[in-house]
């Protein structure tokens, strides 16, 4: 990694490469073995690995700890940070600590509401939102100051990411939101997984028109489907997800034992199309609890 680069991921993207990131969910316990296992499957396969932060508001090993474990295994983590559970004091504190531990990428999110998780009875925080967090991390990096204006004793310099969902409502507003996130400090964007390619292309087109694709690295999300049931579930039960009927029918149209392969096939077709789409700088493969599929997809797509 060059001296000026903030992170390996940033270096790859600024060099014009089509980057590949994946995801790792920490265990619901202190079992290091789970992370080691997932790490082994992803090492050398992707440019960086996102580590989720109590995703779906289910209590898991902290993102910062799991990121450090991945660092020790030789991977490059992207620390996801939600504003649901920590106030601005704790968030800034964790960013300072994360940087000191070697973490160089951060993804700033609001987070799923606690009602979805294992502790729906908990009080949420949401002291600041993801937009505020983006700005805070940017100011820490570029001005060396924390949110109170205090000059930090060594500034954390992170490569800053944000999430975008081209499939949530209202559609017209989504590009305004993207612009706002870039203005707040986002260096890269990871989107919700793409099944509705037409809608995604429309969103990218609008983003291009506003000049946004020149200002930020967009990595399109992809998730291989395992079954028709999974496709239907995601479409109806997961907020902000758009799985077209045609895709569901494709999954339903093959025998059950071939469903996973069909899912990977669709994923590869999507990746191929995304590589040709102007303004897309990479893919973010979210193979939930199916990390083995990532290696297969990356090599079949010729991404490594």
């Amino acid at each position, binding site marked *: 990694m060059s001296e000026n680069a903030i992170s390996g991921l940033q270096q790859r993207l600024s060099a014009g490469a089509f980057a590949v990131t994946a995801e790792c969910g920490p265990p619901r316990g202190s079992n290091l073995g789970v992370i080691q296992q997932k790490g082994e499957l992803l090492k050398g396969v992707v440019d960086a690995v996102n580590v989720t932060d109590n995703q779906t508001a289910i209590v898991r090993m902290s993102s910062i700890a799991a990121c450090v474990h991945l660092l020790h295994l030789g991977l490059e983590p992207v620390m996801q940070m939600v504003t649901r559970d920590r106030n601005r004091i704790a968030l800034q504190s964790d960013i300072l600590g994360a940087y000191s531990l070697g973490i160089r990428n951060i993804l700033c999110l609001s987070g799923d509401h606690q009602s979805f998780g294992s502790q729906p009875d908990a009080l949420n925080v949401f002291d600041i*939102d993801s937009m505020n967090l983006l700005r*805070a991390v940017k100011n820490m990096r570029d001005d060396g100051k924390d949110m109170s204006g205090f000059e930090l004793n060594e500034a954390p310099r992170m490569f800053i990411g944000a999430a975008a969902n081209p499939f949530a409502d209202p559609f017209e507003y989504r590009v305004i939101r993207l612009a706002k996130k870039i203005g707040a400090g986002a260096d890269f964007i990871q989107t919700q997984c793409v099944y509705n390619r037409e809608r995604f292309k429309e969103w990218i087109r609008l983003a291009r028109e506003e000049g946004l694709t020149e200002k930020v690295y967009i990595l399109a999300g992809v998730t291989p489907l395992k079954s028709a049931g999974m496709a239907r579930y995601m479409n109806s039960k997961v907020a902000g997800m758009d799985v077209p009927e045609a895709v569901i029918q494709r999954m339903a149209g093959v025998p059950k034992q071939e469903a996973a392969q069909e899912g990977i096939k669709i994923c590869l077709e999507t990746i191929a199309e995304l590589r040709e789409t102007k303004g897309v700088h990479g893919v973010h493969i979210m193979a939930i609890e199916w990390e083995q599929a990532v290696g297969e997809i990356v090599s079949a797509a010729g991404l490594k």
Partner: protein
Amino acid sequence: MIVGEQKSLAEIKDLVMPYDKILVLGCGTCVKTCFAGGEDETAVLASALRLAFKTEGRSVRVSEFTVERQCEDEFIQEASQAVKENDCVLSLACGAGVQAIARRFGKTVVLPGVNTTFIGVLEKQGLFTEECAGCGDCKLAIFGAVCPVTRCAKKLLNGPCGGSQNGKCEVNPDTDCAWQLIIHRLETLGQLDNLRTYIPPKDWRTSNAGGPRKLVREDHII
């Protein structure tokens, strides 16, 4: 108004169990309008308590009294006699009223009969909705008079999260996504540019997070 819901009969029975002379004290303002503790609800609860205890073979004296508001001395005073004649007061006012009664009748057991919930409006017959969180620093002007602090489950100030779908909040499909409402409203008012403005982190000092608040009006103190 302040909205609340009367506690279950079982919970109330448990609270008043140790007492033989109970005063059910109603309030004629907010809790009356949301059918939790007005004069009518006071009468029904008193009757239900008498019947419930009688069914268990116990004779309990349950008195009823309702004042205009339990948050002002002028009206609280009217209940003095009734309070004196009983072992405990089951107040059906909001939490503020219950505490006001307890402060003025320092040696009396005062129990809450209502779960106070929110500041809201009567949206339509039988439907009360939460509208204001009392943050102390009102920015409704920027948001087209739809409050994201109260009505967005995540208190987001810079736009909707990715979970907003079909205009509904990810937490509850019956709840409108506040940001969808804000966007619609700003569109109607021709103020969509407000959405491009970065809103900085909220100063929560004016809210309850800064500690219980006071309002002192010197101009009203002699």
